[in-house]
């Protein structure tokens, strides 16, 4: 059955009748120096097939040996997600044929994941959601195929493919949630917030650089709808190629609408894998997927069981950074922020950035102000994560420092931000190059004040008569003459000193 429908259903409309249930599968590429089962380098961007060996190329006779650091990273991720760590588990073979998989099986974990039954908490618009984690398990990445000859470089219509196995064998951790229910209209934001939160958690562990656009964090979104009030789950679709936080949110929103349109039309959802297109904002059908995809799993005979001792697990737990909730509470106290202020910072994903800015010398309120205004706006306009804005917390603190020292004012500060973000240099360099320093020479300022008084005798008279509020117009005139390079407060003082 096809899933097109004549009348698209709006998101709001769909939510009046349907209850979305989501499942998120996130793959994290670990930042180990060598691959999961061999000593080949994992450095990104090397020439094709220069980082392969008999093991990761799947040559006859080669055997895998587990990377100790990958196990550690897997356990840390599990602990950070409040999972139980298996006292004993094995790898399993997932058997299927595909040219980017050198052995035509993937060494993964099946019914014995290293971490399971965890949870994590996220917040969207002040509401907390507890996301149950089904499992986190270890597996190896595949090679990369270039599809040649087709129109879009994708697989359809390609005449042949070129395979590079540099990526084959790089360690992956797959994190799978239990069905996420009860998120209703907030489903898209919840999905996005979950992925953002997971990203932050993993980044904090130092086990991956989790860059979605580079593929070191990959997200598959599963979605199904059920009529409101029904408890059984609907048929789900899986959406791949969701390469940014924004895409996560948009894809969920789109799929909810699409499912609703299909169901409203009396048709059935096909259980399939779909491909998200960020440019057109839609998903297209891929392969039909059946739950009973026969991977013929069996325990990997070439690897022996992994049985992390409780001592080792506790030692790793001790190495974990402070859990985000505890950290957040501590920072809130340190910064004396209100709940609402903290929520805004967390919601913007700017907590670490604010913390680093404060560490670099800025006051918490000031740090928050800049990250949530100039920098958040820049990130949104350029559709990048706030961590990726081309300005560091140290630089933000420097700008605030210039403000605190009275060398620039607020308006000028915004110009400094603009300059740094445009790549013109450091804050000092931008101030110098653009001549943004406030004039602090009283005699120069005084001359400008005198000129303004002379030019506006009526206003001057009013001020002299005691209407100090009228000083605003004169301040404006002085600021205009100074091209903004003056401290408005000092100008006011000078005016009142002369007239008051």
């Amino acid at each position, binding site marked *: 059955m096809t899933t097109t429908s004549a009348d698209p259903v709006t998101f709001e409309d769909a939510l009046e009748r349907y209850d979305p249930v989501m499942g998120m599968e996130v793959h994290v590429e670990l930042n180990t120096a060598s691959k999961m089962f061999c000593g080949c380098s994992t450095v990104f961007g090397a020439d094709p097939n220069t980082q392969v060996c*008999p093991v990761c*190329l799947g*040559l*006859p006779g080669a055997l895998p040996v587990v990377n100790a650091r990958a196990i550690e990273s897997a356990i840390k991720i599990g602990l950070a997600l409040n999972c139980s760590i298996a006292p004993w588990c094995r790898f399993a073979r997932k*058997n299927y*044929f595909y*040219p980017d998989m050198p052995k035509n099986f993937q060494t993964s974990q099946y019914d014995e994941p290293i971490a399971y039954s965890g949870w994590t908490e996220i917040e969207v618009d002040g509401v907390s959601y507890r996301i149950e984690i089904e499992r986190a398990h270890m597996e190896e990445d595949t090679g990369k195929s270039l599809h040649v000859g087709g129109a879009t470089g994708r697989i359809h219509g390609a005449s042949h493919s070129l395979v590079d196995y540099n990526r084959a064998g790089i360690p992956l951790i797959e994190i799978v949630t239990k069905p996420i229910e009860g998120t209703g209209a907030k489903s898209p934001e919840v999905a996005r917030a979950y992925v953002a939160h997971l990203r932050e958690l993993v980044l904090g562990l130092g086990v991956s650089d989790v860059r979605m656009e580079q593929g070191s964090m990959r997200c598959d979104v599963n979605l199904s709808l059920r009529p409101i009030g029904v408890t059984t789950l609907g048929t789900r679709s899986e959406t791949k190629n969701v390469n940014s936080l924004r895409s996560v949110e948009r894809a969920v929103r789109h799929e909810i609408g699409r499912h609703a349109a299909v169901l409203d039309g009396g048709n059935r959802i096909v259980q399939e894998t779909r491909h998200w297109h960020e440019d057109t904002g839609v998903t297209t059908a891929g392969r039909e997927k059946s739950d009973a995809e026969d991977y013929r799993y*069996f325990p990997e*005979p070439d690897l022996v069981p992994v049985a992390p001792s409780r001592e080792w697990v506790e030692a790793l737990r001790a190495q974990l950074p402070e859990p985000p909730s505890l950290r957040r509470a501590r920072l809130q106290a340190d910064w004396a922020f209100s709940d609402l202020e903290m929520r805004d910072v967390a919601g913007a994903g700017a907590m670490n950035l604010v913390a680093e800015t404060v560490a670099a010398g800025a006051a918490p309120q000031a740090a928050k102000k800049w990250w949530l205004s100039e920098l958040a706006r820049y990130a949104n306009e350029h559709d990048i994560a706030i961590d990726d804005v081309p300005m560091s917390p140290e630089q933000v603190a420097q700008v605030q420092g210039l403000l605190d020292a009275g060398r620039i004012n607020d308006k000028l500060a915004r110009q400094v931000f603009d300059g740094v973000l445009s790549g013109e240099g450091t804050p000092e360099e931008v101030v110098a190059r653009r001549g943004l320093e406030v004039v602090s020479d009283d005699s120069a300022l005084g001359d400008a004040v005198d000129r303004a008084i002379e030019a506006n005798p009526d206003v001057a008279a009013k001020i002299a008569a005691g209407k100090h509020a009228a000083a605003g117009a004169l301040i404006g005139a002085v600021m205009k003459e100074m091209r903004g390079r003056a401290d408005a407060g000092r100008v006011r003082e000078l005016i009142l000193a002369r007239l008051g």
Partner: protein
Amino acid sequence: MTDLTRLTAAALADALAAREVSAVEATQAHLDRIAAVDGGVHAFLHVDVDGALATARAVDDARAGGTAVHPLAGVPIAVKDLLATNGLPTTCGSKILQGWIPPYDATVVARLKVAGLPILGKTNMDEFAMGSSTEHSAYGPTRNPWDLGRIPGGSGGGSAAAVAAYETPLAVGTDTGGSIRQPGAVTGTVGVKPTYGGVSRYGLVALASSLDQAGPVTRTVLDAALLHELIGGHDPQDSTSIDSPVPAVVEAARRADVTGMRIGVIAELGGEGYQPGVRARFDDVVALLSKAGADAVEVSCPSFDYALAAYYLILPSEASSNLAKFDAMRYGLRVAPDGVEVPSAEEVMSASRAAGFGDEVKRRIILGTYALSSGYYDAYYGSAQKVRTLIARDFDAAFEEVDVLVSPTAPTTAFRFGDKLDDPLAMYLNDIATIPANLAGVPGLSVPSGLADEDGLPVGVQLLAPALADDRLYNVAAAIEAMLAEQWGGPLLAQAPELEVRT
């Protein structure tokens, strides 16, 4: 000068160390022998004349220069074509790997090279080690030197025949269900399957990963022990390799003393289905051991009755997965399907595998795919893994009572070509006595026990010991070998007919 090819590896090693003979002479002698008889025997798939002689020269130079070398340096050896040899073709007896030259050495091969053993070449085998007769080789069968119309056993028929035909004093084989031991029995040679994990599997093209082991194929027990010590030991590249020293097998082989040892005769192996001559020679050996001061008792291992069934589920299952890598995308035979203009990768994979794999391999891959399928896993593969536990427990219980277990190695002597090709099950029965050891991971050894009266063909007796107690095998086997040699006035192989030499 003695015919160098009739010397045991130990004797040859002594002669080399004493500089009575050079490694080049020894190697050339064996190359000449291969040229003379392998046309009839067909033990070798590839002979590396240049490489072997180069190694021999290097060994001679080292000795001349006073550098210390391994005791076996300069003693030639053959390697089963299942082991990866850098720069030498490795076909695994299959068309799908015709002409494949690995870019790396198996760890076992690397150890041979470091020790300076000239590698004469790669020996023939049943395709991907699936078989008991070497009739399933894609390159034609190997012939038993005792009777060229008969099979040499399998899957390692090439290694055993090469050793039996004096083409090499040493060979390395692999054993998954008896592929070293059974050929040993039917060719009158010695074959050992070490404790699982005792010898590195890195570079052994996997058949059934949880069952495969590489091991020595030789004419004497001492030779096997010397080779075992060289190739055995921990390998960090093999996660299943045991990190403890190789058991003291050479010392045990020299000891050859069974006084006070408890020997267990396995009730379930050696009765019905075993050729009378096989049983007779077995009984003789048990009697000999008793006379030599050992205590022989019968033990029962009831789960062994299910060993064959478990094996023929576990092996095909693991093999179906291990052989999936042969898909024509990165190496090996690539064949396009007939009549398809622009074939897909999937189609090319299917056509190549169809063209490259033989019948037995296809049979086992299909069987394995079935046994692992969802819905069937529990009844088949899952159940077989449980039988494995039962077999291991039977061994444990038996070894509480006895030090070593014995049985005939194979139910029959060498059968004629074609005798069992039409009936896969009949072929599988050849492994009935050897399979339990692979399932439990315990070491096993076959040593010649004599000739069957009815056909005058060699028979072997199998010894089994607990995991890591490989030395017990060598001790008892050496004792048996010595006592029988005394009876026969020489080794059993001396009674083999002389092969026709091509001049």
